[in-house]
């Protein structure tokens, strides 16, 4: 006797919602980046100073990029651990990703307190604070999400059968890292 054909499956709701929501967040940053690069190009064309000499340091941005890149790896580790029902590794990976996110927020807050560039110093400063500030909010949302995942994992709910929330969070977190990579290259390196 042949087995009954498997019922067609629909895309997973949490992942679809996360993809659409994350896409909207990326469009938000896309709008800000477009404004930043457009206004910067105009300023450069007119020979205007964009940021004062020495205002933007490469090292803090680079350290943050390294932190974010590491967190992308640990997030992938968390997804893999949940897929394999490896709870111990899932705890470790989720906690480590969240800690790396907190470290990034801490580094950025310290740097901006130290930078000596008022938010209303120029169009460049206002755009810088809005873009980086928005990204910090994005990171903070990701950390809260990771905290909830960790609680679920402790309750034994993040398993290979119920992995959608982890996959959805991973999608969002990769977008967090992707946005920061544009900030790093476009603002910290290109200045």
């Amino acid at each position, binding site marked *: 006797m042949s087995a009954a054909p498997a*019922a*067609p499956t629909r895309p*997973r709701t949490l992942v679809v919602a996360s993809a659409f929501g994350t896409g909207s*967040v990326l*469009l938000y940053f896309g*709008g800000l980046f477009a*404004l930043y690069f457009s206004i910067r190009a105009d300023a450069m064309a007119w020979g205007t100073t964009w940021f004062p000499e020495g205002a933007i340091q490469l090292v803090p941005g680079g350290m943050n990029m390294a932190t974010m890149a590491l967190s992308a790896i640990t997030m992938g580790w968390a997804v893999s651990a949940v897929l394999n029902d490896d709870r111990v590794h899932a705890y470790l990976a989720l906690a480590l990703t969240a800690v790396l996110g907190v470290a990034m927020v801490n580094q950025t807050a310290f740097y901006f307190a130290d930078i000596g560039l008022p*938010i*209303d110093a120029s169009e460049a400063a*206002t755009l810088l604070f809005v873009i980086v500030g928005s990204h910090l909010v994005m990171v903070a949302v990701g950390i809260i999400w990771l905290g909830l995942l960790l609680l679920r994992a402790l309750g034994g709910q993040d398993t290979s059968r119920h992995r959608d929330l982890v996959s959805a969070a991973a999608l969002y977190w990769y977008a967090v890292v992707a946005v920061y990579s544009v900030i790093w290259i476009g603002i910290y390196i290109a200045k």
Partner: protein
Amino acid sequence: MTTTDEIDSTVFEEAVTSTDPKVLAKVWGFGGMTSVLLGAIAGLLVGFERLDLTSADLLGSADEVFQFWSAHRVALVLLGVLPALMTLATTVVPRQCGANTLIFPRAAALACWTWLVGAVLTIVGFLADGGLGTPGAGGQRQATALTLIGLLLAIAGLLTATVCVVTTIISGRSTGTGLRDLPFTSWTTLVSATIWGGMLPVLAANIVLTYVDLRGRSAVRFGAEDAIWEQLSWMFTHPAVYVLALPVLGIALDVLSATTGTTQANRDVLLVATAAFGFLSFGAYAQPFFDTPGTPVMEEALYVVMAFAIVPVALVILGGVADTLRRGASNLGTRPPAETVCALLSVMLIVAGTAVGALRVIAPLDLLGTSVTGAQFTLVVGGAVLGVGAGFQHWGDDLVGGPGARPGMNLLGGLALAGGVVLIGATDLISGLLGLSDFTGVDLATAGYPGSGVDGLNIVSIVGSLALVGGLVIWQASGILHLTAAKKASSV
């Protein structure tokens, strides 16, 4: 002993804590249509002010006129038509897809209330001398900040609801139903929601930047009161404004198909055409920040090509509508249903709006800053309001939860509304060709030194505005009567 089940909750408590899409649809629907009415009243007041272009008579100053003029557009788009469309998107669309209900009902409830709070804050901000800046920088900065916060909340609510709707269509539709099999309302809602998900975040980015700069000691550029509207106005003009019309085209196709008892011919062509209409309405790039030296973004090839390309697409959809009517006209009888008339008129107004939009971008005519922009806005958004009304009438019993529709009132309101839109649109078009500015201010220099015929046209426009407001009042009354009758029927 009293248990929690025995405690009677009030209507307010039930509404606030409910995740039932039908309850939330009433908030979206009545809230949205009330905002449309308020926006129309703001437009009427500005119309009265335009009767005398040389001074501020009804409103205090040019800045106050500007606040009402911008409130008219904001109320119609972000607080009016979009939420009203959300009524159908959260109730009718899931059923059309074969989903039991909306996915993420709690998130949908959160979205609804967040939007409502945002809408109230926005309206309060406008009334407290805030709004989206003023040309003379005479507004209250705190109230302007409140308006911006209100808009951010409204956008957050709309985006959250959009995520719920898109997820329901993609993941929640019944097994075996492909995207090509979706009814037109669901299909166009999916396409529109995708565009909303792309444009509303960009608008939010503009608003956040404006807010941060506004709250500083002195605005650097983005939060300067005379520059705020310029940064946000792209959402209320070509091509972004077309995204309001797209779900309405789907509603019209479904309503006409149902009331004429015919199936839609050339279905795939219409699916492609409606999708193309959606993608031609992406307008987040049309911001003055993206002007290249010597060429404003509104004179760039992309902007002009999109304005022309959407006309044949709209005509294809109109052809589909006309074909359905031709094949099913005999089923309509001598007195076609109100929703059929409203749906047909809405499509015609939208097509007329796309034609005016194409005319507006012809460079030698130099119409970009004239009231032709207002004409296009009125025709497209007016068509959208009419189409949403057609949807409410068609699915009214399902939305409200019982019988009691007032077809006569609906038809009367729809005809008044359509007549008003035509009068306002036509007079704005002619005035614009004569040189009247989009925002006329309270002196002839700002008004654009219009020709002598404009004064008479402004009187005709006032008549149109009165008809528009009258039509909306009739519809609101009809909706309330329907709701009351449905409640009585359910209690019996």
